[in-house]
Every structure is written in C-alpha cells, then in structure tokens.
C-alpha cells in the first residue's frame, strides 16, 4: 500500500527495551518515525486491554519490548508478558485481526541496534499488512 504510514503504539519496559531505545538514540541509529512509545516499569505490567484499546482506537500495530528471559529487573515479569502475548495473539486472530500486528521483542539495554532493527522490521511488516481493519469498519458504519 503506497503512502500508508502505520501508527504503532509501543510499550517498553524501563530497564531493558526503553534503555535499548535510548542506546539506539545515542548511537544515532535511524529507524522510521511511526512508533509512539509508552514507558512502563516492566513489560509484565502490560495488559491485554491496552492492546485491544490501541487497536480499537486505530493503532495499526502494537509493539511490546521487554528484557530478555532471565534479565527481568523484577525477576520474572517478562515471562508473564510472553504468556499474555501468546494468548492475546490467539484472541486477536479469533477476532479477525492479524496476530502479526502485535509484536513482542526482547531488547536488552545494550541492544540499540537491535531495537532499531526490530522496530524497523515491525513497521515494515505492518505496512505490508495494511491499515488496521477496525478503522475501515468504523468508516463503513459511518
């Protein structure tokens, strides 16, 4: 789809993924400007309801960044995130929303390059998927 610039909502944990994003910044590693990031203390605090809310309000993709397994600042929050995301993807696909629109990535505080890379990849993938179908639904119903 030409000219489609997806809106991506991101949730990143303070200790790893957000730090990784900072490092991407410090390293001036460029990535597309489609991400709007919300900092949370731990990825474990991210609720499925936020994901649904984001889609319902028109996000084309939702990105979640947490610490690598074993690296969680709060010991094990990220394991919960992984399980929530896996179940959420099933829910999304049942609701007809491509589960690819929800992306969970582990990014450490030392992985600036990786942060930029996964965000770039995700944006490209969402571009490929096209706009959030919910937006179109809304349009149809006026």
């Amino acid at each position, binding site marked *: 789809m030409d000219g489609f610039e997806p809106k991506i909502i991101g949730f990143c944990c303070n200790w790893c993924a957000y730090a990784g994003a900072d490092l991407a910044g410090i390293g001036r590693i460029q990535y597309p400007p489609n991400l709007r990031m919300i900092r949370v203390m731990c990825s474990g605090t991210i609720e*499925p309801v936020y994901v649904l809310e984001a889609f319902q309000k028109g996000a084309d993709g939702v990105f979640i960044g947490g610490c690598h397994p*074993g690296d969680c600042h709060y010991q094990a929050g990220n*394991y919960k995130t992984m*399980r929530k995301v896996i*179940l959420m993807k099933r829910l999304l696909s049942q609701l007809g929303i491509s589960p690819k629109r929800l992306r969970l990535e582990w990014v450490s505080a030392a992985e600036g390059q990786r942060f930029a890379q996964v965000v770039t990849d995700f944006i490209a993938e969402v571009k490929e998927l*096209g706009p959030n179908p919910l937006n179109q639904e809304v349009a149809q119903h006026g």
Partner: protein
Amino acid sequence: MDKKIKLAIGLGATCAGCDIAILDLNEKILDLASLADIVFWPTAMDFKLSELEKIEKNEIDISLYHGTVRTSEHEHIVHLLRERSKVIIAFGSCSCFGGIPGLCNLTSKEEIFETAYKETPSTVNPEFITPKTKVSQDGHDLTLPELYNDGRALSQIADVDYYLPGCPPAVELIERLIPIISNFLETGELPPKGTVIASDKTLCDECPLTKENKMVSRIFRPHEIIPDPKRCLLEQGILCMGPATRGGCGSRCINVGMPCRGCMGPTAEVRDQGAKMVSAIASILGAENEKDLSEDDVEKLMDQIKDPVGTFYRFSLPVALVNKRIKEGS
C-alpha cells in the same frame, strides 16, 4: 397502597429465561404487583406492539429490557420504551452486555444464513431461500424485521439507567428492585444513574470454595476432571471466570460444581472483562516453572484454552473493546 407505578417489560433476542426469572420471584411477585401496574410484557400477557406505541412519552415509570438487540424490531422496541419510560433498566446479561446471542458478532449474517438455511444436515433448501425483510406473494406483502449483522447491548442503542445482570438475573437481585420501586413511589428518589444491581466485588468474594495457590499448570475442561468439591476450581485447572466476574448471583454455578462463566459481567473498574481474564489466566498459567518454559511450551499450554473468545467473552462480546470479528485484509 393506592399509588402504583407503571412497569413495562420489553424484550429482544432472548431465551425468555429473564421472564421466567421474574416469575421465579414466586410469592414476592405479589409485592411487585402491589407496587406496579404492568403496562407491557408480551411474554407473560397478551400485549401487542401497537399498544406500546400508543403509550404517551414518559408515561411508563420503569421499563425492564431483556435480550440482545439483534433485529430492527428489537431496536424499534427499545426506542419506544426509552421514549415512553422515565427509567430503563438493562435486565439480564443479554441486555447488559450483549449476552450469548452477542457471540453472533463472530460471524456475519450471511454466514449464519449459510449455516442455518443450507449447511445443516436436516435442511433441504435447494434454492437457498433465506429470510427477507419483504416478500411479495400472491399480491400480498409479507414483512419480517431485518436481522442485523451484529448483536448489541441495550446501552449501545439507548441511554440506560440501571443494570441488573445475570443469565438469568438471580432472584435475590430481582427482589432488590422491590424496595427501589417502593422507595421511588414514596419519595420519588432513585439510585444514582448507572448503578449495577449486584455486588461491587467479584464472585470470589462470595464463592464458598477454599483458595490456596493460584498457580495453574494445566487446564481441564469440566468433563476431564472430577474436581475437589471444596477447592477453588480455577486452582484445579478449570477455567472459572469468577475472579473477573461481578458477584451477587449467589454462586449458583459454583454451588452445583460448575465454574463461573461470567454472566454477571465485569466490575466497575474493568473496561473489558475478557481481556482482563486473559491477563489473569496467562499470568498464572505455567507460572510455577515459567523459567523453564520455551515459547513452544507456552504455545502448548495455551492450546488447552480451546476457544478464547467464547470462553472469556461468553456474555460480553458486544460491549468488548473489539466487539466483533473483523476480516483482516478484506
């Protein structure tokens, strides 16, 4: 008491269990009768829609509406009731949250027709005749209400004053209407708008079972296990919606060994009942040895939840954040 209020009971897509529930008031229905004149209740008495149409604006004091709004006629009734009633109460899960008929949002009208009028083995319909809103035959016009593509809760059609959830609502909760009505009669006062006539807490608050440890490592469907009758069902791996479901029903299902299925809807703090339960279940499922579980292991764990939407949104899909199935890419 001389003065009585005017009460109407309207309905949409319903199993009429809500009507039965009102009748289940048993002798208390007399109390109700002493407080209210029933001006519309098609299930119980021979009311016609035209009679409702004749009622003046605001003439009805309180309306109860049960059932999902599924057709143009349901919507019409809702608008009539709303216009003619001072107070309208969403009665029962279908009215409050869309209810089980609301699961129709996972399919389209066309798909339903396809199944109901073509694919079921007992159907012989070679010409694939499906309901039409208007059919002319032999010079006669026959009309049917239009079946909507989706099912909706009452609040999505009209402004709702109170909610009385349950599938059907528990008699104890319906009984709570009686003092509300009598108080209204005496003082003209009503509870604050938006009040849910049920508990503020979740089912666990009134659940009689013992809670020990909420870590779950396997999910059982009810037929796969004979549960310990004293212990929390969720802890035994049975998907019980109780933690995410408003209490007030008197633990009716639990009392007969069945897990809560969520008919009372979420608490006031929760915007989306299903998503909250997804969060809770995914958090505790496999938590015990989470560090040893690979992504594949987690996928296998989640395979045990056969129908996430049907399980977590059994009664509340139409009021969920994403309340219908979308066709990605269409």
